[in-house]
């Protein structure tokens, strides 16, 4: 479960980018976090992971976010970064997937079993021993998802998962996202992807909630979307 209770946050530069934000996400929900560039989507995710600290109260993975709970919250929360190059910092996919399980005290054999299981589920066995710097953009994104799943998180946060992907890999990622049973919060302005993966949408505008409701309803509101520099999803605008 995720909960924001009157959360505000400003970077050192002074401008408040999250303002008095409150919302709740229940376990198992898939929620799209949408909004124009600079609306504060990435900042919300960083607050949830304790990479940034603001005012107000945050419940993450069912725990109140404070210094003492932070390690456990991070362990239960998988974050797929926007840029997979930053996510895949070890030499090979295998090294990267082993990183979290070993840090969390799993034996090498257990970790290895988990890695194989995740790779099989994502049909990525062929990439197991590939060097990260040789992967294509799509492969790297899939591998990044694999490293997160190897942590067996309860909640998955994704920052612009389809940015810079070609149509084929975009479809593939959407299929994989839909195959995940965890609580999901997905930040994006790829509204077609959000429509395909989320039942609920939160629209952020300058750090505040501009809309929160069923995906089909919010994403059908042309005037609201355009006021936020967004466009109707293709699949809804055709009719």
């Amino acid at each position, binding site marked *: 479960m995720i909960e924001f209770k009157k959360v505000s946050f400003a970077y050192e530069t002074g401008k408040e980018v999250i303002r008095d934000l409150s919302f709740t996400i229940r376990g198992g929900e898939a929620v799209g976090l949408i909004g124009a560039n600079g609306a504060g989507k990435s900042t919300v995710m960083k607050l949830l992971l304790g*990479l940034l600290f603001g005012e107000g109260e945050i419940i993450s993975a069912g725990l109140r976010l404070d210094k003492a709970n932070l390690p456990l919250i991070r362990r239960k929360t998988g974050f797929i970064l926007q*840029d997979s190059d930053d996510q895949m910092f070890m*030499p090979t996919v295998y090294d990267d997937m082993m990183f979290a399980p070993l840090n969390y*005290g799993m034996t090498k054999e257990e970790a290895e079993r988990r890695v194989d299981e995740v790779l099989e589920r994502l049909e990525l066995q062929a990439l197991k021993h590939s*060097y990260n*710097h040789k992967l294509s953009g799509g492969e790297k994104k899939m591998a990044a998802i694999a*490293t997160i799943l190897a942590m067996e998180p309860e909640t998955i946060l994704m920052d612009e998962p389809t940015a810079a992907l070609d149509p084929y890999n975009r479809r593939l990622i959407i299929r994989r996202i839909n195959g995940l049973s965890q609580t999901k919060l997905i930040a994006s302005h790829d509204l077609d992807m959000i429509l395909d993966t989320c039942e609920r949408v939160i629209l952020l505008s300058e750090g505040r909630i501009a809309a929160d409701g069923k995906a089909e309803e919010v994403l059908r509101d042309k005037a609201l979307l355009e006021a936020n520099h967004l466009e109707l999803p293709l699949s809804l605008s055709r009719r």
Partner: protein
Amino acid sequence: MNKMEKALAELGTMDELSARKSSIHSLHAGAKLLVTVAYIVIVMSFHKYDLSGLIPMLLWPVLLFQISGIPVRTCFYKLRIVLPLVMAVGLFNPFFDREIILRVGSLSVSGGVISMLTLMLKGVLCLMASFLLVATTPFDRICAALRAVHFPKTLVTLLLLTYRYVGVLTRELAVMTEAYHLRAPGQKGIHISAWGSFLGQLLLRSMDRAQEIYAAMLLRGYDREFRYAAERRFAMKDVAYTLIGVSLFLLLRFVNVSGLLGSLFVR
């Protein structure tokens, strides 16, 4: 592929080299670290005129190149940027130290020339030894070994991030030079008037990226210990390697090997 992408690919191959298999690769990172440090200390301890004593120290890196299958060419190719810097260190010695200390036939050699050559050789030997360590050992393992001997956490983490940062820096540089050349077609290099803003940008962008990477590490359980790179225990072969290495260095340092060999052949 532009120059920067090439440099990046090269850094990638550092990881590929260290992932190879050989009897050197399979040694404990701690043993290799210890032997490398011993080698560097002993090389540096040679007297500034003892060029003939230093030359036999080449034996060790040559052996390692042979056994590990790492090509010597790769080493010098990768180090081509640092090598001239190391070589430049002793460049002024011949001007300060003009005393003749060696005559070969009619040729007289001053102390400055000898000490310059000695210093250059020391630099090259130490570079080769460090290169061999990194080329035969995954970097995280080296960090784990440093932690095992109680090197401060912060220092080791800094070392690891620096290693990763170099990769980030070259990648950002590649992206930025490409963007620059798209806007300044046909221009060679980057115009001097753009250097300031270019460097500033590069620094900011790569710092941001480095921060993201560090965050990504923290989020997956990194706590400045290196459990994920933990080593097996010290085995017989690691002890043997350490003993052989260190005693060979001591032998080469304190016994005049080239003199002995020389007198053997002259007689």
